[in-house]
Structure formats: structure tokens, C-alpha cells
């Protein structure tokens, strides 16, 4: 086992494959960061819709969540790959396809976390907020969500780690992330053991530090 294959391709693997810096569309981080942010934002809407009193909001949201939690992500990526060009009548780059698939898929999981977080805030808080004269939207935005978000942090970070790992699946439609970059190098150099172990360590460093951070946040007492 020699590390020469890593050092000679370090720039391609890390700078382009992992960070996505450079002129071409690629990179694990360039896909993971927007996917996490947008997936969570959509997830807030999905989670709140599942708690809505109105059935025609609640039932579609429940179907949305149950559907995407019962289907493999790979399947959703293929759906987007075929459906988006059909609907828009324009070819979309792999980046757009992958990002859409991740946001739609992960919003179902984030939605469940948001729902559990909101339900963990006691009902008396809503009643107190309404009694103080806040509207429904205001009490959600200023009273419920800030407390719920704090309760959600451990589950949210876990889901972010899952999403971060899932971005490797974008490589199956040809998006050049860290995994695809390792595949490209391997096709030329035939050093699979070294290359795949190396990217495993890179992924591990990111996800493990995220989970350590989450554990520290869990221990810190909440400021309220």
C-alpha cells in the first residue's frame, strides 16, 4: 500500500472533488451545503403542514412524508433525472437534478424532526402566547419555533450527517463529487484500496466532527 496515488491526485480529489472549487460544476460541499439549508427550510413547511388543523393541508403533507420515507433515495434521484427534463423541456445539469432530489427527499425527514420538535413544546406556551395577544403566526415564529429548534438540534445534526453522506449518491448520475473523483482517479491508476479508504477517512473526519459538535451542544444547558 502506497500513499503516492493520494498525494499526486490530492488537488483533484480535495480541491475539486470535495470543496468544488474551480470552473467546473462539482464538489461534495458545493452540493451538501445548499441541500442541507434548502432541505431544512422546506422541512419546516412540511413539518408545520403535518400539524395543521386543516385536513387538506395535513393529509397531503402526511402522504408526502410517508411516500418519501418509504422509497430509496436512489429511486428519487432517478425520478428527478427523467422527470425534470420532461417537465421543463430543457436539459438540467447533474447539479440541479441532484440538488432537487436531495431537497425534496430530505425535506420529508427534516419535516418529521420539525414536527416532533414543535410537539415537544408544551401546549401551555401556545395558549400563553395567544393570551398575550400574539396572532397564530406570531406565536409560532416568536414563541414555539425558537424553543422547538433548540429541542431539535441533536436530531437535526444527525439528519445533516445522513444528508452529507447521501450526497455521495449524486455520483451515480455523473456529478463529480468526492466519490466520483476517486472513481475517476481509480480508473486511471487502479489503486482502489488506497483511494476508497482515503475518501472514507475524508468523509469520516467531516461527519465525526459534526457528531462531536452535536454532542457538545446537547450537553450545554439551554439558555432559557
Amino acid at each position, binding site marked *: 500500500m502506497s500513499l503516492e496515488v493520494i498525494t499526486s491526485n490530492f488537488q483533484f480529489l480535495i480541491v475539486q472533488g470535495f470543496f468544488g472549487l474551480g470552473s467546473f460544476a462539482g464538489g461534495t460541499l458545493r452540493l451538501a451545503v445548499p441541500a442541507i439549508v434548502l432541505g431544512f427550510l422546506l422541512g419546516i413547511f412540511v413539518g408545520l403542514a403535518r400539524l395543521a388543523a386543516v385536513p387538506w393541508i395535513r393529509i397531503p403533507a402526511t402522504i408526502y412524508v410517508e411516500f418519501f420515507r418509504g422509497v*430509496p433515495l*436512489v429511486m428519487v434521484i432517478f425520478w428527478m433525472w427523467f422527470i425534470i427534463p420532461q417537465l421543463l423541456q430543457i436539459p438540467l445539469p447533474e447539479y440541479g437534478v441532484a440538488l432537487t432530489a436531495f431537497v425534496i427527499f430530505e425535506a420529508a425527514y427534516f419535516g418529521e424532526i420539525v414536527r416532533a420538535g414543535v410537539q415537544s413544546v408544551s401546549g401551555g406556551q401556545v395558549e400563553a402566547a395567544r393570551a398575550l395577544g400574539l396572532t397564530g403566526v406570531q406565536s409560532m415564529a416568536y414563541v414555539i419555533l425558537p424553543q422547538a429548534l433548540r429541542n431539535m438540534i441533536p436530531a437535526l445534526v444527525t439528519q445533516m450527517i445522513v444528508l452529507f453522506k447521501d450526497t*455521495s449518491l449524486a455520483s451515480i448520475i455523473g456529478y463529480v463529487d468526492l466519490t466520483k473523483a476517486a472513481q475517476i482517479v481509480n480508473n486511471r491508476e487502479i489503486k482502489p484500496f488506497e483511494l476508497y479508504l482515503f475518501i472514507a477517512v475524508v468523509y469520516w473526519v467531516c461527519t465525526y466532527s459534526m457528531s462531536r459538535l452535536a454532542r457538545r451542544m446537547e450537553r450545554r444547558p439551554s439558555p432559557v
Partner: protein
Amino acid sequence: MQYQFKWSVLWSGQSAGWLLQGLITTLELSALAWILAVCLGILAGALRTVTFAPLRAAAVFYVEFFRNVPLLVWMFFWYFGVPPLLPRVVQDWLFNHGAEFWAAVIALGVYTGARMSEVIRAGILSIPRTQFEASLAMGLTVGQAYRLIILPIALRLIVPPMTNESLNLLKNSSVALTISVAELTFQTRQVETYTAKAIEALTAGTLIYLVLCLGIATVMSRLERRFAIPGLIARVGAG
């Protein structure tokens, strides 16, 4: 949208046969990987609670390393990375006996085992320490205490989260298509390639996954009620 639907492609020609083969492969792959994952999960989960530090460290390393790396990377690692290190005879034998299938079983089993061990550890830790001390005081050995007292209670407490992990395993088995295991997603793609009817093929594959997942979830929630110990079931969630 100018798409001509033609649902008959799913039952005319070879499509139905391919999908059925894919389903069988998915189930075989998931079942074998599940057995491996449960064994590794129980082993690592139990080892993380023992007092002997080197064993605990090995279990921690296994869990933290394997569950924090994408499954796809493990698929490539076990299929492309490991076989070249084996003796020539073993390599030849493997590639004549469906190496991609066995690599997928190992990748999926080892990955899910690391995730399951966390669930199992939470189950073991949720049992009061006094149960363990009481079993030792009754004259059981440490091994007996685990086998007869701790694990039977812990296993029941963890049925809901384990069901979740098992469904994840089933869905994750679709990643095996990247090392060309002819499982359900692979065969769905095959139907789509041969018939050029993407929506019909993907609908069929998606529905099969949905039925499988909902079916397993229903069976497991029945089992959960059947084996529940009254008054104990809320503990994992609360702890």
C-alpha cells in the same frame, strides 16, 4: 408535457420477469445483510458496555468509523478495494460466484451493523444497572446475565428503532446497483432502458418499494405489541 404513456410495457415482454428477479435479489441481499448486521450490532453494542477497555475501544472504532462513512464508499471499498488483496485462488472463486452480491452483503451488513449497535447500546443502557447487579447476586455469570436478563429485555425495548433501521437497510440495498448487483432499482433501470418508458418503469419500482416498506412496518408494529413488556416500553424513548 408530450409524454406518451404506455403502461402495457410493464407486463408485456420481459419487464415483469426482470422486476420479479430484481425483487428477489433485493430480498435476498437485504435478508443476508440483515442477519450480518444484527449479529455485528448485538456484538458491538454489548461490547461497548463491558468494563474491559480494549474490547470497548475496538467496538467504538467499528461503530464510529463504519456508520460515519457513506454506504456507497463502502460498496466500492468492499467490491473494488478488498478483493485484489486476497490470494489469486480466492479472487477467481469470488468472481465466478457473484462477487458483487457478496461485496454488497458485506458492505450493507457491516454498515447497518454499526448503526444498529447504537440502537442496541441505547437499549442496554436503558435497563437499570441494578438488574445486572441483581443477576450477578443471584449467582449468574456475566455472560449468563447478558444472555438471560439484559439482552431479552433490551431486544424488546428496541423493536421500534430496529424496525426503522431494518427499513433503512432495505432501502439502502438499492445502492448495490452501483456495483451492478441486479437488484430492484437495477432492474427498474433495465426495464426503462429496454422500453424507453421511464415513468412507467420508475412507477413500478417505486410501488414495489413502498409496498415492501409499508408491509414490514405493519408486521413489526404487530410484533411490537405482541412482545411488549407492560410498563417498560416507554423507557427507550424517555431515556
